[in-house]
């Protein structure tokens, strides 16, 4: 698959501070997360790809072009910055129309795209209200809408869930997933929240201190474990008793039960125990490891992962 975005030996120094150090990776179609702590170099990488910063060395190409050399590539890019970027005294409809025009769309097309994009972002009813009165969640939606209004081939989202409450965060992640799944737009998603990246992205690039420490498919990091996860609607305690009676090691948390064992006899014991306890089964399957567990296992920070860099 052709790379939509590629970094090759990319470095960026601010005097004595190294923001990016010899970073190389490629991103193809799908949702890719750039994961890293604050100051890891995520925003710097995004700004270099957009041509807003010049790299100290190396190259960054997006859609096969270096943006610094061909600014018109930006007509096919969307960018959602981390920080505030919305004027307060303008309506969302007017703002998006203007942003579409600045991306190169003629006025009539820009107006139509603005209305459509606000509808997809769930702001159609609010489009003629000044944005100063919007909630944080609504502002985040306008921010992502302005990145999509000109139908880009790829959007770069810088910490899109920053400042959102859990419900707003969930809505934003759903909008990000929808942007790729339904709109067919590829996404580069920067975040320091592993759970957001794990739940939303197909691939991750992990940066720490300006260096690439991991990259690859999310599912390759969250491989199946030898634990079976079970979730039932009722009779949980009876099920635990029935499993323990069969000599199966079981632990429980608020989410469900975890049964240790890789061989198929474990599933037979679970089946029999479910029958005995008369527990309605909601969900069962091998448990996948969470990204957070990987980082916790390797230490309190990302440093333990430097061994696993993929070229």
């Amino acid at each position, binding site marked *: 698959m052709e790379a939509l975005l590629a970094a090759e030996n990319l470095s960026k120094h601010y005097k004595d501070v190294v923001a990016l150090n010899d970073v190389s990776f490629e991103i193809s179609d799908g949702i890719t997360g750039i994961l890293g702590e604050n100051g890891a170099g995520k925003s710097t990488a995004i700004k270099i790809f957009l041509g807003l910063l010049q790299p100290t060395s190396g190259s960054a190409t997006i859609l096969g072009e270096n943006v610094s050399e061909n600014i018109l590539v930006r007509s096919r890019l969307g*960018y959602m*910055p981390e*920080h505030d*970027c*919305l004027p307060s005294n303008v309506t969302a409809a007017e703002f998006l129309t203007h*942003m579409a025009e600045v991306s190169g769309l003629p006025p009539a*097309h820009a107006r139509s795209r603005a209305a459509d994009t606000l509808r997809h972002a769930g702001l159609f009813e609010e489009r003629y209200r000044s944005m100063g009165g919007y909630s944080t969640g609504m502002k985040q939606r306008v921010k992502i809408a302005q990145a999509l209004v*000109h139908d880009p081939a790829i959007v770069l989202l810088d910490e899109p869930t920053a400042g959102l409450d859990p419900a707003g965060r969930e809505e934003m992640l759903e909008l990000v997933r929808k942007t790729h799944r339904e709109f067919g737009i590829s996404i580069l998603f920067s975040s320091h929240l592993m759970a957001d990246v794990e739940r939303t992205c197909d691939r991750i690039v992990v940066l720490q201190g300006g260096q690439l420490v991991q990259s690859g498919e999310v599912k390759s990091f969250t491989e199946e474990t030898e634990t079976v996860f079970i979730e039932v609607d009722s009779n949980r305690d009876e099920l635990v008793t029935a499993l323990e009676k069969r000599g199966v090691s079981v632990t429980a948390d608020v989410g469900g039960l975890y049964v240790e064992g890789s061989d198929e006899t474990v599933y037979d014991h679970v089946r029999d125990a479910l029958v005995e306890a008369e527990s309605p089964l909601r969900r069962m399957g091998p448990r996948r490891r969470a990204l957070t567990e990987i980082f916790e296992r390797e230490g309190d920070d990302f440093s333990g992962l430097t061994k696993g860099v993929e070229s």
Partner: protein
Amino acid sequence: MTTPGNSVEGQRGESSRAAEGTVFDIGYQHYDGPREGRNRARLSVFKDGLKVSLGLGRGPKSKILPWMFIGVLVLVALIMALVAGAGDRLVGDGTAEALDLPSHSDFYGIASIILFVFAAISAPELLCPDRRDGVINLYLARPLTGSDYIVARWFSFFTVMLLVVWLPQIILLTGLAMGDPKPSDYLTENWLDIPRFLGAGAAIAAYTTTLAMLTAGFTTRRAYASAFLVGLFVITTPFTTGLAAEIGGTTGQWISMFNLSNIPVHVNDVIFREASEVTAHAPAANFDNWILVSWFFAWTLVPAGILWSRYRRLSP
């Protein structure tokens, strides 16, 4: 993709059935229309600047200040036209000229302080909020450079200033022509005033636009920029006038050159080949025309260069 299952039909009576419509959720549509690149981006920033400056498409509060200033300037022109016209009609043809009543060559001098205050209040609105709210980050991530942005914004406000300086002069011309017993004769005799007030107006517009935009380019707070500019224009006049009169001689003349309000009015005087009422007694007016014009260009082009240089390197 059409999904009739998602249709929403109006719940109206038989009488309005003809007006009923059906809304379909056609899903996300990719855009395959024209993409006009950098020129469209520049034009859009330019148009947006016009709207911001004049409060168009904004609430009533945004319209009050610009249109109040335009109204005052038009009123000044109307009064000048009425006085001259009344003199000619009531006392006799040529009275206005004989009494040396203010005309086109005097208008910019008389109105200069209003023009400067208008620029000081309105121009920062084009630059300060974009940086304060972070909108500049979105502009620079599109097919638009920092240079494109600042040039488009400069031309926006320059266009507004042209409207503000030319409109009263056109009204004054119309009033003076209508006040003459033979309007066509008035236009034939005074047609040269038209290119002169257009040229002098363009000089004033370029000068005020550049200084106001430069100040706005260094702060994210519109109020700071406005207060600084008003102070600059208002304070330099009594300060330089007093000091120039005290010192006298060539030094006094040069001090008088730093009266920022008078710099474009001297160009107006050069164009009209007569001193306006405001600059007639300024020591700087005794300098050769080329010095006055060069001084004007220095005070316009150097700030423009600094402004351009600042935005050319701007990054989010």
